[in-house]
């Protein structure tokens, strides 16, 4: 009854073809790991015990920094003791390393001017005056802020004593702030919390006492309140504004509405949503990175080395596959072709899944993964070998080829399931209990094992049964690598004494 076999075959073939076509249509491609395309990976450890919240904050700060690098798939995650940053394919490795490692400082800078224009030439020194107020030294041309090609001050020029041009955090409108030298740093801040006062979310700021604290703050506050040239009134505001800058981005730039503040009674109101208030207070509280992170493990792989490894892996895989094909077809003939087709099906499905995971979930294929897949070739072929050898035994035991096919598959499949389940248990445990490369290996081992079972059950079994139904199969068992069917050979006893 070939209907069931035909249904299974049609099913698995359609699924494989559909998966391959969708992979191409969606443009899914496997995401290559650091070791295959080059890049930077840094594992940072907190120098002192850190809470999850602090590490999460560190992760989001690092992600903000890294976004500027144009890395396609940055992977930044919290580990038990720190942060893991992986930047495959990053061009500027030097900068990536310095960005990730440094503990940026929170700075208070007076706002000298605000420009809404995105045109760099409009940022020429003179243009700040007239339209907007500008701090005296810039206005007079005595000091020129360093401006990079993108119209902002580059991170390496963002120095504490210089005038800088920076953007607002989380703002894509291209608004630029011309800021004066830093007057106070994050060290001044004791605490910051979101508060719900007067029916709106505000951020309450608590400063330390002393000169590096509330006194320093009041010094600049008085100037801003009065609209002193070092902290002028901008855009028609009655008072000057003081920007709080983190990592080259303005977190918030409140107007100073009083000449003097109590150290624990500073309120920043800006029509915040709750989330914004949370965000701003987190940034203020932790200054920059909430914990000090030290690189514990740094890995830099140049793009050429990565490509070499990838090419070597791919060529080795293809050559290996070709040789396996020659061997298996030479040994099992037409059954060997079935085995190869079965391998092709699990390969197509595996490719689709790996590409999907790479594109959708950012799961990278590493060298360990590639080698895992190469090894999987051998194990996948084994499922076929187990069945075919079983067929041969049954035929020698006197069964017809067709009855061997029917009887043998459930037995062989049961063996394969037993053995594959052990592999799956191993893969699952490794996935759950380990980290890093070992985990990637476990994933691909598990995937390949499952697909091996799928291809065996849905393709190889039905295909062999279908072939067994043909007259060709009954007449030419040798073309299927099977011994001539039927009776027990008579010359058996002659070999009884042969030993290894």
């Amino acid at each position, binding site marked *: 009854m070939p209907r069931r076999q035909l249904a299974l075959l049609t099913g698995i073939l359609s699924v494989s073809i559909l998966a391959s076509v969708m992979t191409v249509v969606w443009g899914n491609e496997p995401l290559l790991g650091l070791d295959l395309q080059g890049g930077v990976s840094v594992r940072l450890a907190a120098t002192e015990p850190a809470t999850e919240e602090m590490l999460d904050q560190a992760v989001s700060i690092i992600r903000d920094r890294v976004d500027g690098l144009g890395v396609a798939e940055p992977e930044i995650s919290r580990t038990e003791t720190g942060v893991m940053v992986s930047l495959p394919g990053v061009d500027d490795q030097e900068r990536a390393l310095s960005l990730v490692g440094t503990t940026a400082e929170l700075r208070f800078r007076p706002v000298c001017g605000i420009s809404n224009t995105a045109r760099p030439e409009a940022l020429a020194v003179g243009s700040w005056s007239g339209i907007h107020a500008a701090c005296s030294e810039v206005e007079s041309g005595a000091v020129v802020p360093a401006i990079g090609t993108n119209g902002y001050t580059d991170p390496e020029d963002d120095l504490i004593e210089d005038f800088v041009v920076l953007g607002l955090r989380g703002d894509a409108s291209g608004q630029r702030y011309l800021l004066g030298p830093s007057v106070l740093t994050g060290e001044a801040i004791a605490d910051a919390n979101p508060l719900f006062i007067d029916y709106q979310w505000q951020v309450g700021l608590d400063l330390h006492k002393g000169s590096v604290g509330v006194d320093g703050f009041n010094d600049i506050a008085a100037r801003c309140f009065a609209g002193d040239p070092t902290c002028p009134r901008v855009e028609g505001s009655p008072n000057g504004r003081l920007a709080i800058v983190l990592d080259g981005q303005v977190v918030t730039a409140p107007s100073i509405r009083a000449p003097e503040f109590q150290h624990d009674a500073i309120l920043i109101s800006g029509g915040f949503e709750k989330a914004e208030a949370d965000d701003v207070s987190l940034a203020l509280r932790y200054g920059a990175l909430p914990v000090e992170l030290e690189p514990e493990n740094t890995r830099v792989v140049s793009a050429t080395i990565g490509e070499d490894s990838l090419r070597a892996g791919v060529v080795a895989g293809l050559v290996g596959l070709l040789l396996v094909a020659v061997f298996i077809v030479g040994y099992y003939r037409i059954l060997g072709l079935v085995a190869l087709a079965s391998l092709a099906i699990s390969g197509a499905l595996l490719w689709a899944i790996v590409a999907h995971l790479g594109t959708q979930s950012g799961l990278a294929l590493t060298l360990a993964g590639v080698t895992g897949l190469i090894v999987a070739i051998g194990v996948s072929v084994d499922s076929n070998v187990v069945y075919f050898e079983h067929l041969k035994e049954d035929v020698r035991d006197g069964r017809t080829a067709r009855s061997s096919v029917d009887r043998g598959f459930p037995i062989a499949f049961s063996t394969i399931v037993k053995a594959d389940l052990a592999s799956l248990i191993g893969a699952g445990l490794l996935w759950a209990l380990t980290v890093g490369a*070992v985990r990637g290996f476990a994933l691909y081992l598990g995937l390949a094992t499952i697909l091996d079972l799928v291809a065996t059950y849905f393709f190889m079994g039905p295909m062999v049964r279908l072939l067994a139904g043909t007259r060709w199969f009954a007449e030419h068992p040798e073309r299927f690598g099977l011994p001539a069917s039927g009776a027990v050979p008579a010359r058996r006893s002659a070999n009884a004494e042969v030993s290894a």
Partner: protein
Amino acid sequence: MKTLRALYRGESPIDFPALWRPAIVGSITIVVVGLLSFAILGLNLGLDFEGGTSYEVRAPDATVADTREFVADLGYPEARIQLVDDDIVLIRSDVQDPTRAVEIRDELIAGLGPVVAFEQVGPTWGEEVTDKAVTALIVFFVVVALYIAVRLEWKMALGALVAVAHDIVLSVGVYSVFRFEITPATVIAFLTIMGYSLYDTIVVYDKVREIVGRLGATERYTYPELMNLALNRVAMRSINTSVTSAIPVLSMLLVGSVVMGATTLREFAVALMVGIVVGSYSSLFLAASLVSALKEREERWRLIGDKVRGRLDGDGADDSTTHTRTIERSDVVAADTRAAPRRAPGGGPAKRRPAMTAPSGGGVPPRPRKKKR
């Protein structure tokens, strides 16, 4: 070659029980050597486990001596220098301070050539990874033992664990004796070997179970004899699978690492080659012999053994304790027919039996061919 041809024809040319003793002696010797080497020499732990810094510098003109001098001038005379490729020099030092590591890198770029790969590892990283791997390993052993005990039987679980442990000790021993460097890739290779060895052992055990299920009921053969038949019948599969598994790995070793110079692949491939060969060997020789020895002590098999030996002695055969009779194919077929329930004569429309899903008790007759034409 002759043996191989006989195996191919489905005969039973190998007397496995006779080979078990030398195999066990050999294995124990090698394991002891491996353990000794491990205890005395230890392992050549890579960067990830010891901490330190490595640089790969593209410097086509630099010799090892040049580089050593250059690095010594920087203050690291004991750094290890190695020519990886024609144009790449690998420099390993024990520098663990990140800032200093970066400074050295800049010096290398200025003095030797572009640094194509740079790795700096703190001392705690390897410990953490090792701890996790060891935990995973122990849990793995326990769970897999339970699994085999449930799916097959506990004696086989024991045999499989011994075989897997043997393979791991041997692979680690090879790394220790030949001073190969242990890297995270090596750890993965060991895990692959473990998985492969286990997989192979289960396939062999399942065959043993099938054969014992078919012929055990006749009570005419001892357990080692049945085991011998099963091993001979599964040997061709083991060889073929080893070959198809080894070919890609060999290709990785030759094409990938020797021809194309991907060094990461080389370490991996060497470990895997050892693992595949040893994995197949241990299934047929160690895992099988242990189960055979355990089963022979069982009441049922002891009685059968006594009976068989008694009959042989009666026949005037020579000392039979070491001799394993080869079970003929005709006997297997006969046992199948005997064990089969009575069928309607002429293979007529007998009642259809449900297809077997697993090798259970007795043999199953060939399914009657359906009349169709």
